[in-house]
């Protein structure tokens, strides 16, 4: 990773990596999950897709991941699709219980025929980035929930992908672990220059982590507002207590609530 370090340019000067244009997704039965979703993911972005359940944020992620195709519209990768497009972190750690931590992180390489020995350095580097270098020979069951999530993150970034997708990765963790992982995720991002698309339903998480918040509404799923969080990385405890942080959180929260239908309470 250090050898592949990517500089993060200021917002507005970044090259586009992935472009979603006017994407519609209609499920069988006529449920419109997404309508006219347009989104450019740029090199170095930390994008949060924020919205209530049913707003299609996970659907958007699955479309980017190629797990489903759009009903209408286009998703294009700049320079075509390749091997290192994606890393994914799900809500659950999604580790192979029969494999050690190191072997779990090895999986993306293994699937393209690269032996463990050949990529051992990169695996060790990824594990030390998430602070688990001492646990490479442990089995997932020996780890705590937060540690398992770290392994999952190491697996997602070990190939140094163009975009890392995260689908509410910390939703199932306790608050303390969650904050620690948020901090660590940001320092990881600063070190690797990773581009992240992060799905969450937490206003505070999105304001803390991202530089672009896309607020979504449901029925049909759509983006209603983009909120730019132009605070420098790395962000720490100062950012959590900064007045700008509160202001943006307030704005985001208002946008989110304004989008809820009158009958819906939060």
């Amino acid at each position, binding site marked *: 990773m250090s050898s592949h370090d990517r500089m993060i340019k200021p917002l507005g000067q970044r090259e586009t990596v992935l472009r979603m244009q006017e994407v519609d997704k209609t499920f069988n039965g006529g449920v419109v999950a997404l309508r006219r979703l347009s989104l450019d993911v740029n090199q170095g972005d930390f994008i949060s897709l924020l919205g209530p359940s049913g707003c299609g944020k996970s659907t958007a992620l699955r479309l980017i991941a*190629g*797990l489903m195709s759009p009903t209408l519209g286009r998703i294009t990768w700049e320079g075509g699709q390749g091997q290192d497009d994606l890393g*994914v972190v*799900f809500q659950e750690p999604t580790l192979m219980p*029969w494999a050690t931590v190191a072997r779990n992180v090895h999986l993306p390489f293994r*699937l393209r025929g690269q032996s463990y020995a050949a990529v051992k350095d990169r695996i060790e580097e990824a594990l030390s980035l998430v602070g688990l270098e001492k646990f490479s020979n442990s089995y997932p*069951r020996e780890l705590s929930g937060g540690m398992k999530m770290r392994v999952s993150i190491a697996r997602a970034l070990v190939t140094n992908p163009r975009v890392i997708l995260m689908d509410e990765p910390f939703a199932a963790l306790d608050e303390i672990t969650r904050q620690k992982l948020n901090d660590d995720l940001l320092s990881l991002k600063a070190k690797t220059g990773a581009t992240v698309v992060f799905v969450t339903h937490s206003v505070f998480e999105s304001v803390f982590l991202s530089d672009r918040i896309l607020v979504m509404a449901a029925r049909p799923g759509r983006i209603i507002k983009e909120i730019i969080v132009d605070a420098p990385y790395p962000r720490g405890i100062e950012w959590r207590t900064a007045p700008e942080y509160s202001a943006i959180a307030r704005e985001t929260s208002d946008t989110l609530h304004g989008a809820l239908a009158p009958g819906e309470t939060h």
Partner: protein
Amino acid sequence: MSIADSPRTKSAVTANETGGGPLFDAEEERRARARRVEQIARWVLPALVMALAIWFWDRIVVWNEIPHYVLPGPGLVAKTLVQDWGTLSQALVVTLKITAMALAVAVIGGVGLAVLFTQSKFAEMCFSPFAVILQVTPIVSIAPLIFIYIESRLVGLLLCAWIVAFFPILANTTLGLKSADHNLRDLMTIYRASRWQRLRFLQLPSALPYFLGGLRIAGGLALIGAVVAEYVAGTGGIGSGLAFRILEAGYRLNIPRMFAALLLIALTGVVIYMTTSLISHLALRKWHESALKRD
């Protein structure tokens, strides 16, 4: 009972008196002792009860003066086992061979079919009814037909044992192959894993605990299949297994030998079960819930 008059256990009092404060908790202590007792009882109790049962069997025979052609005592059975070891061990080897071969073929066939079923839904739709029919039809009723159509006695026996043994492996492995974590399956898609890689790196490991569960059942069933088939096949002479020896001894009213052969079959079953359990434990101990120690 109120808190005030709750009994203080002796150990807690002793701990306090030593001046070091309550170094141990009386309840925890009790629990630890219960665990130790249970540990020992796990082995001692069954052995003790078994010994008692055998002794009781012996006493019944002696006290009632039951003739040995009705019910032989355990001593006589053991003596017969030693005396007839030549004949019986040969028969045991035959039965073991058929059981092992049937189990091997059941594993190959069961896992092979399970993989086929999960690779192609249509194959499953086409062939799973046959598997079910073979499973639900009692082997005793199919066996006579098999011995009519199949010339070789050995192949016939093997086929019977296989029919009985392969279904649990097929059913369990199919279930296991299908129960791979759905997020891991998505991950495989995202990393563009081939069908083979998906099978090799995700589905087969996911199915392993299920397969091993099936293997444990199939091991016992293969032995039952081998024995039952031999009963049906009847005549044999050279190259006959334990079931034939039991039949033969029955005709000759050699009841002690019947018991000795029966004992061998039971022991074989136990050994098979223990072996498959051990295999299962060794394969899963590092990662699977079923093999983990809990306290």
